[in-house]
């Protein structure tokens, strides 16, 4: 089992650094590249939700990333100390709407839910924690 942790400011400008952290882990743990796309997308969507919507004007939230890989699954946990917010309560976007009526709100979380095997949210000790899991095929 391999694991890595990193703490960084929940600022949109930190997104490339957050992605680089994940890519570094991917190389070190020799994980499948196709799965890397899924996790990079999930990290971007979740991190930006915190950075763009979780922050109040007085303070940049702190974000903690934890990624763990075993023989059977990869788990990414994104925790933050912004105001309590469960992204899984966001309404599913209407993906059948016409071009003019399309909105992008909620689409990122929709993608994360579709692409991950499990996504769960908890709020504990002042922190939002979103836990995302993808099973590894036993081939």
């Amino acid at each position, binding site marked *: 089992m391999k694991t890595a942790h990193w703490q960084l400011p929940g600022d*949109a400008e930190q*997104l*490339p650094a957050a*992605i680089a952290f994940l890519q570094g882990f991917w190389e070190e743990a020799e994980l499948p590249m*196709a799965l890397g*796309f899924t996790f*990079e*997308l999930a990290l*971007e*969507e979740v991190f*930006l939700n915190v950075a763009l919507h979780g922050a109040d004007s007085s303070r940049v939230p702190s974000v903690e990333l934890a990624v763990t890989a075993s023989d059977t699954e990869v788990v990414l946990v994104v925790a933050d100390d912004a105001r309590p917010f469960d992204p899984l309560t966001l309404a599913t*976007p209407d*993906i*059948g*709407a*016409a*071009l*003019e009526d*399309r909105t*992008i709100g909620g*689409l*990122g979380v*929709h*993608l994360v839910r*579709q*692409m991950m095997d499990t996504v769960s949210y908890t709020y504990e000790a002042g922190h939002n924690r979103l836990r995302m899991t993808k099973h590894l095929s036993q081939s």
Partner: protein
Amino acid sequence: MDMNTENVDGITVALPAGRLDFGAAGPFQQQLEQAVAAKPRGLIVDCSSLDYVSSAGLRVFLVAARAAKAAGIGFAVSSMKPAVKEVFDLTGFGNVITLCADRAAAVTALA
């Protein structure tokens, strides 16, 4: 993110390359808006060199498709790699934007 554009028989072909993430979305949107403003016969986004797209990137396709439609310009997206195609499929964007397997099919779709 790098993006080249080509003009083929009055159709502008935009070729975004690499990662279309939150940081790349703004410049990409500007380039597509400029392409629409030049009033080509059609606009194709050839994604053959695009490795990654997030919801911030998807938004740009939506904005460009609307701008092109409002300007009476045909708009199509072609040549997506499987991972990028999956993001389009999971969001149902194929229902509102013309997606083509390759550039030739996109040219045909805009004819």
